[in-house]
């Protein structure tokens, strides 16, 4: 996004201080700050727009939002994906009103301007009314995003022509993403459909909860945990053998016990399935990542995608003003799984992390109240405490890439999320966004490296 499109404004670095460990609550409620987030974060970040499995065939499309910009994600005849604004260049009306489907044309209801599945303007109602020279159809298609790329099934788009590549954006977080996306041959797919709900809370509260807040789980979700597992409480946390790992705003918190998240799903057949494939997973991804899988863990991709590896909920927090977000919920499964296992996982996810889920119900209530209290002008100027584990960074972990911290009850990933937030809010251009973790696996297939130590001997 060129800087002239970004409204000049005051700085943002007075709103968070990650060395001291606090966040000013105005980032969760003020309209001016929110508008700047749309320009500086959502219009410049790589945003998840679809999973390959949602639009498998030419002409398949879905509609979604990048920030508050509505877009159409459309599969082309050659298998590539185009992403363009869902807004007619004539008077601005939406050209598609469906969540998903298959279409050869997107035609505007207003004056019948018609666009093909690549977004090119093909014709309009009563086209004779335009004299020669009135319009060049070749330059009046639906506005394309600057970049589209994908990583192991996840399709991302970026409005910013100057953006760094998706590989650079994800960086070494790819090593962690492989635990979710590449733990078995064939990769992943999303279960059909999408559950959307509306929560009166700031979008960042959902992201930061999943990026690192294992701490809330044993308390907020005591009731959900006991409900799903015959009265058993939240599994104990091993603070020595659990971690936060942060890479340029993305974050994954995890234990190494291998079973915690699987236990929370409450589906014995699913645990059995994963235990059967775990030896293969260890051969495929290395010992460390096979232990991370299924452990008590949660993760977010900056800025607004989160998931629980092992529980298989996959979600996006779509901003709708500072006081509201729309939560899109999917279930992510391995393509190779038998239908019965996919079904067990889907039901388990919706019983835990759907709107009627035993875990989800307590989260939404918390986030709404964390947000709405800031209607008070005194309250909103209070700082929030983010110092948990502030001195627990591990330098030079031999295996784990990223900024790594010991103990999964920690605010480390949250601090690094807000650090990246302020880095992007301050950066004049994409190239000014600092790398807080320089990528080590550039140009390499991260699946093939058991860890950082593998870099010296070429893999496992």
């Amino acid at each position: 996004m060129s800087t002239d499109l970004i409204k000049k404004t005051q700085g943002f670095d007075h709103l968070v201080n990650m060395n001291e460990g606090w966040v000013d609550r105005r980032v969760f409620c003020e309209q001016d700050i929110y508008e700047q987030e749309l320009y500086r974060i959502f219009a410049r970040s790589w945003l998840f727009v679809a999973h390959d499995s949602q639009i498998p065939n030419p002409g398949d499309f879905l509609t979604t939002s990048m920030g508050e910009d509505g877009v159409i994600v459309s599969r082309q005849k050659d298998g590539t994906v185009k992403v363009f604004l869902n807004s007619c260049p004539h008077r601005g009306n939406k050209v598609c009103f469906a969540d998903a489907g298959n279409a050869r044309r997107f035609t505007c209801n207003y004056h019948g301007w018609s666009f093909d599945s690549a977004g090119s303007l093909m014709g309009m109602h009563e086209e004779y009314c335009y004299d020669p020279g009135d319009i060049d159809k070749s330059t009046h298609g639906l506005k394309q995003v600057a970049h589209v790329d994908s990583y192991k099934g996840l399709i991302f788009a970026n409005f910013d022509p100057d953006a760094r590549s998706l590989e650079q954006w994800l960086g070494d977080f790819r090593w962690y993403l492989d635990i979710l996306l590449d733990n078995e041959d064939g990769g992943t797919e999303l279960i059909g459909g999408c559950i959307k709900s509306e929560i009166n809370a700031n979008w960042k509260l959902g992201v930061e909860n999943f990026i690192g807040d294992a701490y809330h789980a044993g308390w907020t979700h005591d009731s959900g945990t006991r409900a799903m597992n015959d009265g058993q409480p939240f599994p104990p946390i091993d603070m020595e053998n659990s971690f936060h790992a942060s890479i340029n705003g993305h974050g994954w918190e995890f234990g190494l016990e291998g079973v915690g998240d699987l236990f929370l799903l409450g589906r014995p057949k699913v645990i059995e399935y994963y235990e059967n494939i775990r030896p293969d997973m260890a051969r495929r991804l290395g010992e460390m990542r096979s232990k991370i899988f299924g452990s008590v863990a949660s993760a977010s991709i900056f800025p607004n995608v989160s998931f629980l590896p092992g529980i298989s909920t996959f979600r996006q927090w779509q901003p709708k003003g500072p006081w509201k977000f729309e939560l899109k919920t999917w279930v992510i499964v391995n393509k190779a799984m038998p239908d019965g296992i996919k079904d067990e996982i889907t039901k388990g996810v919706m019983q835990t992390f759907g709107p009627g889920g035993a875990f989800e119900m307590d989260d939404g209530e918390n986030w709404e109240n964390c947000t709405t209290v800031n209607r008070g002008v005194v309250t909103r100027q209070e700082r929030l405490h983010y110092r948990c584990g502030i001195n627990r960074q591990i330098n030079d972990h031999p295996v784990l890439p990223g900024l790594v911290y010991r103990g999964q009850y920690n605010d480390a990933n949250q601090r690094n999320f807000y650090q990246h937030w302020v880095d992007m809010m301050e950066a004049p251009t994409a190239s000014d966004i600092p790398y807080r973790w320089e990528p080590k696996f550039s140009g390499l297939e991260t699946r093939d490296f058991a860890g950082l130590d593998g870099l010296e001997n070429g893999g496992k």
Partner: protein
Amino acid sequence: MTNGPVHAEVPSIELIMSLQQVLYKEARLLDAERYSEWVEMLAEDLHYFMPGIETRYRRDKTDQVGDTTRMAYYNDNLDDLKKRLRRLETGTAWSEDPATRYTHLITNVEVELTDQDDQFRVYSNFLAYRNRNERDQDTLIGNREDIWRLKGSSYELLKRTIILKQNVLLSKNLNVYL
């Protein structure tokens, strides 16, 4: 909804009245969070189903209701439903205390005979109102298609399909049974 074949015989007034009373009683139990009594009204082989409904063009033939492998708010058997309800018995369901205030309105009750002598198809519409804390409130409206099975002198719910008339659930959660 299945809209199965209408049985040639017309249900008696008595049958219609008794099934209507069952629906009203169920609503009264749900309003009062008397879930253990509600569970008594459910069959061991229950299927309780509320699919997510995407907005799609009329020409799109995706089976959003009949395909039970797609995303659904509820796709539960009796054990699944009991698990959800167990959360309220733990005493640590923080967001349920103070309690939500519920009212279910049940209307448009229509009874059909089926090919099974002891099973009856019952259509109804619902309006479920929720109010929490000071002014937190929402209203859920939609259709239901049930199969109720004769059990002793009463009926048990064997199958329910709920169609909520929302694309985006305009609420933060679904701590309510419809």
